[in-house]
């Protein structure tokens, strides 16, 4: 292996007052040779900037845990063996680096062996344990100094304990003094000058300090970040860089919300709030030392050093107000205390809080009214597995009525100036309407707004709120200065909204511009896209029959294309049955799935070959004879709904669709009485669902019900297959869906599996093309007027649906201004898109509204009598 060296182009020696840069590297960043080569490169480049560099390192990954285990081990032999294994890890890395054992590291290994042999007897349990654990950083830094120096970057090893002096707070016990010590880090010109006199590059340890007695103490969790911050403050560094595995803080936990965006700029208080309400990338306490000396902190991704990462610094004023992040903390227990006794009673609260202290429970959020005070407890093992809550409740019950509410989750919106953003949050807050909100808290520092809700809702709630925050303009994701790429663009499946969508191709764009010149507004449908989507579905072998839900788009050319692709058809009204009958051959199966259909509708449906679906008791109760001798399908409401908007959710008691499960027995009894055979079960929970697992759950619920009924031959698990619309949304994973469906089918092979997608097949195939008529400025707002609006496409007004909007004439020009794209209809809701960043428009430009193939033309209306919007079909 070639030894890594850097050739510094003989940089000029640094002045005594050259600025400092502190760089911190965590456990995985120091565990292998390639990672050290990376550190070498980065440190050299910072030195080349003309700065002194202090590298702060953690222990090699896994070593701190190993040392902790060693210090909990009672047996001397086992301790020695553990120390031996730890030494071996470092020797192996040293061998990878082709280095001989440096004296500094050798001394550390010997120390550790001595400590392991001696055990805690001499120095006391805590101090000994701290001394043992400190060795992780002592060894990694010694190893690093040798590597960097040998590679051509002379690096001095600094013992952090000579620089960081811990102080003890009066309320700290011995354990926290030794294992969670604190340092009062103030700018220290003497230290800076002393180090400057010794060299240009330094390496030291995170996590450790010394106390007043000169003993080694530890800085607790997040200790290395904290060390770096202490050094940054003491050296008044140009900046502190913490190098880790993610590019920074995100607008939400990326595991919950893959579309979460990188936060590029935060002030200290916002960052601290985000870190303490959920983000794991930074320990909240490492920010406060930097605030006073105004040293910025950068979070950088070791694997993507080119990314700007997150810069945390003093507050800046130039940005528009925006919510920065949404976070959720689970496992929260609320204690609600009710008493008239507290009203104007001196000392009542003091007495109450004394009980929490007595039972060792730490209080986080507090909300109070005249006769109620509610507090939250953070999850701890003590809370979960001791009787602390029961004992607390017993004591509190003596002075007030107490109720323990759990499990809860705190959902927090973070952003500076939260109170002045409330007006933008109305659609976001409306989301809480159907939830049990136990507590709302808004701190006086005006940085957060916290809702405590039932824990079981947060996994779906948080992604939904994140999306709502963006669509409501409360989280200004369009502001590229503040918000970087999404997590999934950086680390996930990639930014999915396709550059390859058909209308972006040069030839298609030209064709569309030509069509626009002939007249707008026009819907244009691209049949190859319909076929492509159809084939993607047909490739899933677990589904026995695919139906196209024709309500999405009844254009005959689309119906014909789907006949050719082997689809059956699902209709919801006699009119749709007629439209399909005109185009579709007799041999193609049909489903008739109406909702609140009249007796006459059913009579017409029964006169066709369609399989008729009932979704209520009434038709069977009152018109049962209509169905005598027939085989029908039954649509059930499984009791919950999914989808991006209340109006597209079709499950749950709040929805008018489906027979509730508690009426199933009665339905079956009536069916039996009328000689009706229930052949199929059907459930459809909503639209725009992008997670594959959902259909497996629906299938398994339907199948277990079908097993009880006996006569069932097919299960129709509906449609609702989502099509991503916002930039950054992940498309439905077809391979995963296929796997889920195969698994479902394998568990219940005796039922045919049916599905009935609509929008999935046609949404992307259709676009609405329009002309720019004019622009208007109004205060800070800019409006871009086009020649059609909600009369052609009502989805944005009806569902807050997001359609991509581009200026097709200027497709290659960068977006400059933020526009409200509006139509000519006399309704204030006639907005096709809000806050769209578009190039400067000219009258006559062609504006394209994407994903208009589904629920576009079919939902259009004559409102304002602006005439029919024409439809054009592109066969190839």
């Amino acid at each position: 292996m070639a030894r890594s060296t850097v050739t510094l182009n003989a940089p000029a020696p640094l002045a005594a007052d050259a600025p400092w840069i502190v760089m911190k590297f965590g456990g995985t960043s120091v565990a292998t040779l390639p990672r050290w080569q990376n550190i070498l490169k980065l440190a050299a480049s910072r030195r080349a900037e003309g700065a002194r560099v202090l590298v702060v390192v953690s222990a090699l990954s896994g070593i701190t845990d190993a040392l902790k285990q060693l210090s909990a081990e009672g047996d001397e032999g086992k301790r020695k063996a553990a120390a031996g294994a730890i030494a071996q890890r470092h020797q192996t890395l040293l061998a990878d680096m082709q280095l001989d054992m440096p004296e500094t590291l050798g001394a550390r290994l010997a120390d550790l062996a001595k400590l392991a042999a001696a055990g805690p007897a001499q120095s006391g349990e805590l101090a000994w344990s701290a001394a043992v654990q400190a060795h992780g950083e002592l060894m990694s830094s010694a190893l690093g100094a040798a590597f960097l120096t040998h590679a051509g970057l002379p690096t001095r090893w600094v013992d952090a304990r000579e620089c960081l002096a811990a102080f003890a707070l009066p309320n700290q016990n011995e354990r926290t003094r030794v294992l969670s010590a604190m340092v009062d880090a103030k700018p220290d010109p003497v230290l800076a000058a002393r180090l400057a006199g010794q060299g240009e590059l330094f390496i030291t340890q995170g996590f450790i300090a010394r106390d007043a007695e000169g003993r080694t103490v530890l800085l607790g969790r997040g200790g290395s970040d904290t060390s770096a911050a202490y050094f940054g403050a003491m050296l008044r560094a140009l900046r502190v860089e913490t190098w880790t595995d993610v590019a920074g803080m995100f607008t939400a936990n990326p595991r919950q919300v893959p579309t979460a965006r990188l936060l590029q700029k935060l002030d200290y208080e916002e960052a601290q709030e985000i870190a303490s309400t959920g983000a794991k990338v930074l320990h909240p306490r490492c920010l406060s030392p930097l605030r006073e000396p105004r040293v910025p902190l950068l979070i950088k991704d070791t694997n993507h050093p080119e990314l700007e990462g997150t810069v945390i610094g003093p507050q800046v004023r130039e940005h528009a107000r925006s919510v920065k992040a949404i976070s959720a903390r689970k496992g929260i227990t609320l204690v609600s205390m009710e008493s008239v006794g507290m009203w104007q009673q001196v000392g009542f609260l003091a007495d109450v809080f004394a009980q929490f202290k007595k039972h060792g429970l730490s209080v986080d959020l507090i909300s109070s009214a005249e006769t109620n005070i509610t507090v939250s407890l953070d999850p701890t093992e003590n809370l979960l597995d001791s009787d602390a809550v029961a004992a607390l409740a017993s004591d509190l019950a003596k002075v007030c009525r107490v109720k323990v509410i759990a499990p809860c989750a705190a959902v927090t919106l973070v952003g500076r100036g939260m109170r002045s953003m409330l007006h933008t949050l109305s659609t976001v807050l409306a989301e809480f309407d159907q939830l049990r909100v136990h507590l709302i808290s808004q701190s006086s520092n005006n940085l957060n707004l916290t809702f405590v809700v039932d824990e079981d809702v947060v996994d779906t709630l948080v992604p939904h709120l994140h999306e709502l925050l963006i669509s409501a303009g409360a989280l200004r994701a369009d502001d590229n200065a503040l918000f970087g790429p999404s997590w999934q663009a950086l680390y996930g499946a990639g930014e999915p909204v396709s550059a390859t969508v058909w209308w972006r191709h040069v030839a298609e764009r030209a064709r569309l511009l030509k069509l626009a010149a002939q007249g707008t507004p026009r819907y244009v449908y691209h049949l190859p896209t319909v076929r492509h989507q159809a084939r993607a579905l047909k490739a899933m072998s677990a589904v026995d029959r695919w139906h196209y839900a024709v309500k999405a788009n009844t254009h005959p050319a689309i119906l014909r294309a789907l006949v050719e692709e082997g689809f059956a058809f699902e209709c919801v009204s006699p009119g749709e049955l007629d439209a399909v009958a005109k185009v579709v051959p007799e041999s193609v199966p049909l489903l008739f799935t109406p909702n609140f259909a009249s007796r006459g509708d059913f009579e017409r449906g029964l006169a066709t070959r369609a399989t008729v679906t009932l979704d209520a008791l009434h038709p069977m109760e009152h018109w049962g004879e209509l169905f005598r001798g027939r085989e029908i399908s039954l649509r059930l409401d499984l009791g919950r709904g999914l989808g991006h908007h209340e109006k597209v959710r079709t499950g749950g008691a709040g929805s008018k669709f489906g027979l509730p499960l508690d009426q199933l027995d009665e339905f079956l009894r009536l069916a039996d009485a009328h000689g009706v055979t229930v052949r199929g079960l059907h459930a459809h929970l909503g639209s725009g669902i992008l997670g594959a697992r959902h259909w497996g759950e629906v299938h398994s619920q339907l199948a277990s019900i079908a097993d009880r009924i006996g006569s069932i031959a097919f299960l129709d698990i509906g449609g609702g297959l989502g099509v991503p619309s916002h930039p950054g949304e992940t498309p439905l994973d077809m391979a995963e869906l296929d796997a889920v469906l195969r698994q479902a089918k394998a568990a219940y092979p005796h039922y045919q599996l049916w599905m009935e997608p609509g929008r999935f097949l046609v949404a992307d195939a259709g676009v609405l093309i329009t002309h720019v008529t004019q622009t208007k400025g109004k205060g800070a707002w800019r409006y871009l007027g086009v020649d059609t609006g909600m009369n052609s496409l009502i989805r944005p007004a009806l569902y807050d649906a997001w359609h991509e909007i581009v200026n097709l004439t200027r497709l290659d020009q960068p977006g400059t201004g933020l526009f409200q794209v509006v139509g000519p209809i006399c309704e204030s809701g006639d907005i096709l898109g809000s806050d769209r960043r578009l190039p400067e428009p000219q009258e006559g430009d062609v504006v394209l509204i994407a994903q208009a193939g589904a629920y576009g033309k079919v939902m259009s209306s004559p409102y304002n009598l602006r005439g029919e919007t024409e439809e054009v079909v592109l066969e190839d």
Partner: protein
Amino acid sequence: MTTTQPRLTQTFRFLHARYADGVAELAYAFDDGAPLIERIRFPDAPSLSPERRAAFDAALKLLHLVAGVSYYKAGVPPKIELLDGALDADTADLLDALYLHGLAEFAYRNHLDLRGRIQFPRAASSSTRSEGARAPALDLPARTLVPIGGGKDSLVAVEAIKAIGGEATAAWVGHSDLIATCAAATGLPTLNIGRELAPELFELNRLGAWNGHIPVTAVNSAILAVAAILYGYDSIAFANERSASAATLEYDGQQVNHQWSKGSAYEQRFGAWLHAHVAADLDYFSLLRPFSELAITRAFARLTPYFDVFSSCNRNFKLIGPKPADRWCGQCPKCHFVFLALAPFLPKPRLLSIFGRNLLDDETLADGFDALLEYHEHKPFECVGEGAEARAAMYALSQRPEWSEDALVARFRETILPQLGVAQLALEPWLEPAAEHHVPARFQGALKAIG
């Protein structure tokens, strides 16, 4: 493909039971219809030693007879026919009882009366009972098959056997991710026996077969008896508790018990039958028989490592996942009962973290909990403890400040409690084991580990 109208059939016929290469084939027919063939797959089956052959054949024959209940119930024809001849009185009695009582809920739901209808052919010669007869002992290895179901009971049984150093294998029938996960969590060797119902049964269902609950524990017991002889186990330890013996309701003079084949009477009869016809040293019993549901949940409350894997939920039984809502629907009687029964024995935050929500603070669940308490309604048809146990647990919670203000506990306190005598609501009597059980002497220590 058969075109039989199942409800119009006249005869249910037991055709044959064969075994080869780890697969047992059980064949049945209605009238002269095509055979319905069920297959039971025993994984990695060892070859059968000649000295166990007779015992194996006897166990397989019984399995054939017992498993027939799934098919018989499709048509409930008036006549039962056995291709290989009539049964001895002992066996015929067992099956008559199993079909009558095991299908009692099925009959109730379908408005059928099975009394006098179920008569297994019995040989005239064997009308005298072979009271006390013993099959030869086979010197079976001292190890135990513990059927596990993913719920708390079998896990309590597993840990009790572990506690006395017993050698055990976690066994289950059919595919279930939930059970596989629980089995893995026990750390025991596992045995997953495959069971494939005759595919024609689904066709019969489509043609209007009768449908409903069958005594599945009896079928699984018979499968495990075959497995015990095949692999060599001297004991089968189920985890059926005391209240499984209680009738769910009485209807037209007949006791209807949803879990009859989990009851003490069937346990005793089946165990005795195995001793008499299969092997004198094959013990079949329920380790949890002396205990109430509450005593078992108290024992389970000590088994923290299982909290994140087990589920007794009926609705979600095909699903597993990391989130509580993946394992507990929160809507079915099982969820309600297990929640209520565990509550007195676990710190509240821990219990809520298992279920992911607080079922007792959800007013919409009032009807479900009322049914458990037998308030206004009869006991729901689920394998749950007696109403009195539920009331004792609810009363205990109503006396605890951390629970007493929760919606359904407060409702109990204000509405239901005044109608009850507090004297009958104590929790402690439920925690005392009963003397009556069929647990062999060498497992007595395990009983102590539970109680």
